[in-house]
């Protein structure tokens, strides 16, 4: 019986490991195949393996709305596809460039704001990230249409007082793509409508940090337009965020040194803990002898092992 149980457990564990290995392998192989065919050109410093490993760590802790782990709920295909989505765009979930979200038994990859900014930087001709500017009430603007018929702010004069008043009227974002300036302009009304479309946005943040979220929204609008209308060739990235390692941003030696210093400073230096010498009076309890704790064979074994140790080490 015991053996059977262990056997089943063993099988379960190997199943989980194989599951991970299978999916990771198939996604990695697919990405490699795409790269080989010349259909996908990932940046040299993007490691598919690393991204999938971090994705896997995140997936293990991701739960669906009922609180069940997505790896149990979602289909194998959808897991593989969401990982592939992530890898094709050269994104990494550890950098918060996206999230895995379960809809029913389908897992999907949702590219976050940071992810979109990362993707847009990989497009040909775009060397810098998009910049957003907030328009305050009282600012003077000159709005023209570019050769692409996009709205573009060419002249924006503001006063410090307008910023101090803090009444936001709108925002615009621009990014240079080759010689052309791409731009998106939104009024505050349009921005707020966009927010209403997404019920998951936490309203509190959008009130507290309205300016910052206006910037994000307008950049989102601009990036969406550029990325989703780009032909696939452009997705062959030439440039990603400077270094893959950057998201493990901390300097580990510093962290270790700090921890050691803290231990040195605090360990075993605090006040002495002990029970009061005079026994405080407690309410009397009915005293019943406890049954002995069963010592199963395995625990006997380990005690035995300790006593018969060849090297007691005294």
């Amino acid at each position, binding site marked *: 019986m015991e053996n059977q149980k262990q056997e089943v457990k063993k099988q379960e564990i190997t199943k989980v490991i194989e599951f991970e290995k299978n999916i990771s392998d198939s996604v990695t192989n697919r990405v490699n195949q795409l790269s080989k065919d010349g259909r996908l050109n990932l940046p040299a410093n993007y490691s598919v393996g690393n991204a999938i490993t971090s994705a896997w760590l995140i997936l293990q802790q991701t739960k669906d709305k009922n609180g069940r782990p997505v790896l149990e709920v979602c289909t194998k295909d959808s897991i593989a596809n969401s990982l592939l989505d992530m890898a094709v765009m050269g994104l990494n979930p550890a950098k918060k460039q996206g999230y895995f979200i379960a809809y029913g038994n389908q897992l999907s990859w949702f590219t976050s704001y940071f992810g979109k900014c990362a993707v847009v930087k990989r497009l040909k001709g775009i060397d810098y990230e998009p910049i957003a500017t907030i328009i305050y009430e009282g600012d003077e603007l000159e709005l023209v249409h570019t050769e692409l018929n996009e709205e573009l702010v060419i002249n924006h004069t503001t006063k410090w007082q307008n910023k101090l008043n803090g009444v936001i009227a709108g925002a615009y974002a621009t990014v240079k793509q080759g010689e052309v300036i791409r731009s998106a302009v939104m009024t505050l009304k349009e921005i707020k409508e966009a927010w209403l479309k997404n019920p998951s946005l936490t309203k509190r943040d959008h009130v507290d940090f309205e300016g910052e979220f206006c910037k994000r929204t307008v950049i989102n609008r601009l990036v969406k337009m550029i990325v989703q209308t780009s032909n696939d060739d452009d997705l062959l990235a030439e440039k990603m965020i400077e270094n893959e390692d950057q998201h493990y941003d901390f300097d*580990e030696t510093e*962290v*270790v040194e700090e921890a050691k210093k803290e231990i040195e400073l605090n*360990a075993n*230096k605090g006040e*002495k803990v002990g029970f009061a010498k005079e026994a405080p009076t407690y309410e009397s309890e009915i005293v019943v002898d*406890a049954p002995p704790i069963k010592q*199963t064979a395995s625990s006997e074994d380990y005690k035995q092992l*300790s006593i018969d140790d060849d090297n007691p*080490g005294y």
Partner: protein
Amino acid sequence: MDITPIASSSSGNAYLISDGVTILLLEAGVKLGKIQEKIDLTSVRACLITHEHGDHAKHAKDIAKWMPIYSSKGTFDCLDFGVYNYQKNILKAGKEDLIGTFKVIAFKTQHDAKEPYGYLLKSIITNETLLFATDTYYINNTFDALDYIMIECNYDEAILKRRYTNGEVSKLQYKRLYNSHMSLDSCVKFFKANDLSRLKEVYLMHLSDKNSNEQDFKRKIQEITGCMVYVCPK
């Protein structure tokens, strides 16, 4: 005092202690069935939990069906007991309490949890004290003469460093270990700083699978304490 480790690793922790009258369960990180193999749950007086991480508190709700749970407020904030909420008992650090025939003082430990505790227990039957401290990278307090010590001894820095340079340990994990678990060095320092004159037995807990060397750890602690050292089985 009778100490019976049930499981001790990052996949689950549970220990039983008994002074012949009261039996306490320390930690709730293993399935009920595994505890029931050792003891009838109705005879266990209470369960003490150090912090909310899964390997220590995953099955707290199941255990709350059987007995009261003691822990810090911060830990309870992170755990859901549903209808068994009434089984929660908050311990305050530094304050003496009585559970069955055990006197208990909780003290703060250092771990990346909300409000982690370690426990100092004293049986009023046998007059013996037991220190229980796991998942802490150092212990700030010192203690009166202890009879039994159950302490975490997670990793050996030399082994960890070697594995990190070989790329077997991720940077994240490497960093976290230093700020959350006890190294052999810190453990040795703990023993040197405390009164060991009455010490009878030492139980080393929560040894890392790969960053530790059981025989080496045992020998080192035995050299300092001069008494029996057990390594809790995983």
